[in-house]
């Protein structure tokens, strides 16, 4: 119990000062060494025969919104800063407890930990599941891919960039009749895991940023939206975002109703990215999903790996070092996330599984592909429109949710209006639809693919029942895509 006296916790005070003084050189989140110091201190204080793994998450989000354009209003900022220490213990029917604290001195931190420890049942060592042959010693031999997800420029943007970015969005609307609302957000995070043997660690740090603009006419008859996301704040271009949003709004003046039904759909990269993200559940070996054949009854039964499940032009992969996105090279429990090809030329190649499921199945453990890249093709959106006899262009979806995991059927709405395409040209804008489709079938009806890019999902609030979705979402890189027979089942606002 004397170990803590030799540990230096001054970084906690420095972190708090960083937020307060808002200097450009302040890191804002814990470094590897600082997080390891904290985790080891916590681990030494926990009672019991077993020292559980400890994770330290340090995160900061800096956001600002402003109504811009014809009715500009003063901006509003919102900053959230958290430092979370987590370890598993027995608590009723739950398995882990979170201690959320911004304390910045060792003595108070010690009291916090001791107080929590006094109210919990000391954790027991994990036991091997009867169905697994997992060898815990494997954990100590993990290695991780090198990734570069951190940009100091994003940290600098937190203190010096938001106001200027909003001003640039507003400048593009100055003198126009458009009303708009701009949102800018920047984030930094570090994550550290100390395993129960105290010798194995995993550390990752990342930054991310996004900027979006929604514009509409005074009468609300025309709407447009655009967004950009990049881990490096300097790569975002507010003038370009504003230009695209205005251009989209110009195209969506006075939409009319179109007959619901099945159409050829040209899905923007954002719309495709939304579908891919919603499909992530299906890769897990425990999921009830289209990747399981009808004979699938229990873990270990034959699944569809090796079968062609999508169009041969579809290749889906995850690379933690992806230059356009990337992610931590490990899952929350420290299991490495290797570069993975999930689908190659339409053939299912890999499934995701936690360590306890993967080892007895003889597969590599992988986390669900919430960050994923889809290979593209040579066809631009303009070319897709030119070759479309009758179709609907979709900018993005909202309220996309899986309503039947077995078939992957999803429902949702299009948002910000659609465009009716006839005889190779945009005919006129149409009102939003409700969609009812399984993307697993949609990816079998591919007509053309475009150039992939990182998708910006925007800041639409999650569903009331989903408290786990927080901005920023893991990156998805997707191309625009033309598909046939997409089910626009009803008008979104039928009267």
């Amino acid at each position, binding site marked *: 119990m004397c170990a803590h006296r030799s540990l230096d916790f001054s970084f906690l005070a420095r972190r708090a000062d960083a937020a*307060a003084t*808002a200097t450009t050189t302040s890191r804002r989140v814990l470094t590897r060494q600082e997080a390891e110091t904290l985790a080891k201190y916590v681990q030494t204080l926990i009672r019991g025969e077993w020292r559980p793994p400890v994770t330290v998450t340090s995160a900061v*989000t*800096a*956001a*600002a*919104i402003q109504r811009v354009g014809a009715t500009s*209003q*003063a*901006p*509003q*900022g*919102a900053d959230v800063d*958290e430092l979370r220490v987590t370890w598993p213990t027995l*608590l*009723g029917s739950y398995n882990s407890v979170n*201690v*959320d*604290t*911004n304390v*910045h001195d060792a003595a*108070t931190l010690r009291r*916090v930990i001791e*107080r929590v420890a006094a*109210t919990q*049942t000391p954790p027991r060592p994990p036991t091997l599941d009867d169905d697994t042959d997992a060898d815990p010693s494997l954990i100590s031999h993990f290695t991780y891919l090198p990734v570069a997800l951190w940009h100091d420029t994003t940290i600098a943007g937190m203190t010096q960039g*938001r*106001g200027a970015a909003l*001003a640039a969005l*507003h400048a593009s609307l*100055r003198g126009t009749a458009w009303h*708009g*609302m701009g*949102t800018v*957000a920047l984030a930094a995070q570090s994550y550290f895991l100390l395993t129960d043997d105290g010798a194995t660690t995993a550390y990752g740090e990342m930054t991310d940023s996004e900027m979006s*603009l929604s514009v*509409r006419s*005074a009468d609300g008859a025309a709407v447009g939206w655009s967004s950009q996301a990049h881990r490096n704040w300097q790569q975002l271009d507010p003038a370009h975002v504003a230009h695209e949003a205005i251009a989209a709004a110009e195209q969506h003046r006075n939409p009319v109703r179109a007959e619901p039904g099945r159409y050829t759909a040209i899905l923007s990269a954002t719309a495709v990215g939304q579908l891919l993200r919603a499909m992530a559940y299906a890769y897990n070996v425990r999921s009830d999903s*289209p990747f399981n054949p009808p004979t699938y009854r229990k873990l270990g039964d034959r699944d569809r790996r090796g079968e*062609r499940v*999508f*169009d041969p032009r579809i290749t889906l992969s995850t690379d933690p070092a992806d230059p356009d996105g990337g992610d931590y090279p490990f899952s929350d429990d420290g299991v490495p996330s290797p570069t993975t090809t999930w689908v190659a030329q339409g053939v299912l190649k890999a499934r995701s599984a936690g360590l306890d499921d993967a080892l007895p199945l003889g597969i590599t453990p992988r986390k669900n592909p919430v960050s994923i890249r889809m290979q593209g093709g040579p066809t631009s959106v303009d070319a897709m429109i030119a070759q479309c006899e009758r179709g609907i262009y979709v900018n993005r979806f909202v309220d996309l949710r899986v*309503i*039947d995991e*077995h*078939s992957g059927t999803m*429902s949702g709405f299009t*948002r910000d209006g659609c465009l009716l395409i006839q005889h190779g040209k945009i005919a006129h804008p149409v009102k939003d639809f*409700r969609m009812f489709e399984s993307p697993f*079938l949609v990816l079998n*009806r591919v007509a053309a693919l475009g150039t992939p890019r990182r998708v910006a999902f925007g*800041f639409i609030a*999650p569903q*009331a*029942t989903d408290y786990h979705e*927080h901005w920023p979402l893991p990156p998805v890189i997707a191309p625009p895509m033309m598909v046939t027979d997409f089910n626009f089942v009803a*008008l*979104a*606002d039928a*009267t």
Partner: protein
Amino acid sequence: MNTSSLTRRRFLGQSSLTLAGLAVAPRLGATVAALPTRSTRAVATFLRPAFEPETLRTLATGAIDAALHAGAEWADIRLGDRRVFRPGAGNLSGELSVTCGFGLRVRINGVEAFVGGIDPVPERLRDAAQSAVATARELANAVSAETQLFPLAPVPVVTGEWRAPIEIDPFALSVDDHAALLGGGGGAHDGVLSRWRRRGVGIAPGQWWEWVGETRVFASSDGSLLTQCLGGVDANVLVGKSDWRLQRDDVLALGVDGQHAQTGGVELVLRPTWFADIEAAMEELARYATLPGGVLDVGRYAVVLDGPVHAQLLGQTLLPALSFNRVLGNELDLSGASFLAPPDVHVGDQVCSPLLSYRVDGLPDEHVPGHRPNMYREGMPLEGVPFGARRWDDDGVPTTTVPLIERGTLVNYLASRATHSALATIAPISSTSGTVSAPLGGIAHAELASRPAERPPSVSAEPASSAMSLDDLARHLGHGVLVRGGTVDVDPTGMGGYIYKQMLLEVRGGRIVRRIRGARLQFSTKRVLRNLVTVGDARTSGTVLQRSIVPGVPWAFPQQAWTAPAAQYRDVDLVLLPGFGPFSFGA
């Protein structure tokens, strides 16, 4: 423990237990404690409150001073701690959590910055104040000659304290007493359960309660300093078939009427009807379980929604659209615009059925200091105090009942101090008198560590004044669908939604004839609100506690209590759930 021993007198005696000798706990963001399954110790002794009210007041005023010292022209702060106790049952232990938080706002030249945190200690509050001021200064770069700067709406400076009307403090009771409350009456239900079991119907009650206590301090640079001690219960009792959670298309589960969220203490659950309501729900569910199941053709039907489902539908469609922040266009990039906003809709317009009246619940007069209390009956107030009731809202404004929709006419928007001054920019906002309508009072509401939003803690729809029970509504259906239980999901833009995980019962000739399998209800918001044809009386009212989404970065989820009577709607779409059986790829 025998239920008969759990008398109100006994609990009143126990409530005199003091929590003497408790030291202030170390400052924590959130701490969770597992309670043993058996203990005679009071619940509160397992995890002490983080702060005393006086400490919170000192912290709050210190934070305001720090903000002004850093250069803010104006500042306000909300901070406090929230205690939540979920009693265990059987072999499951209960859980007690203490969560702290603060939310600090500053303004400089009309630009507002907010910093939220979970650890309200002096050093952190000082740092937050400096950070907020720095952010506000940096955001001033986005202010141009065209930028409209709206001052905060002036409100009276108020100081004072208020305590929620709690007779029996749930945190002063022992673990054993709470277990007895939860399990009390179990023996009385055995007769009902075994009778139906003999008929091949296996049902069981499930309960989960949540007792909430909160100490909340508000301070502003205007001079307001308010301390409120809040408390209430969210009591959920559900009876269902043992496997109902696994069912996707034929859910057999029923919430128990009368078990809902209110401000108050243990006295709420000692009502004589508490266990009788559970048995009545068991009988009702068992009857439904014996009905045949079948598929109904897709199409449009007259539908009766029970109180809790109706409350969800209104809370997720109307409330966000009535937020003036949204009407102004300040959520355009987040959740979207409001369908109840100019130029399409004005205050004074008929926006839905004339049977709908919707309001923000103010504090019942008897709980406002200085008012004479109403008569009580059987020791209970004639009207329950809404969950989350408080004397002042999170803008420091005294709460008041605010009508939003009266007989289908839009009469007010939900405005806070930050948006109220912008009313003049929406021209014209009213189609009648030309006067703006967005009174302050009980509107602003925030979780600790989140910015106040126009999400009042309690809203309700008015029931019918004449007798109209749920059975009456079903009888008047002719041919239609009765919805019991379920979850309503509306997309963030509010355009439409659906009802799922519910019991759908086909009604023919006023009689419930079968359960409907494999279907759900789907609606378009604007259309469904016009299609309300009948509302039930007060007996049909149900309350749900929901977390309303407040868009922003990060998103916030303040808890709200939504209350509504049962209601009949016409022309609601019935659609099929996806088909079952093997899935095959089309290629």
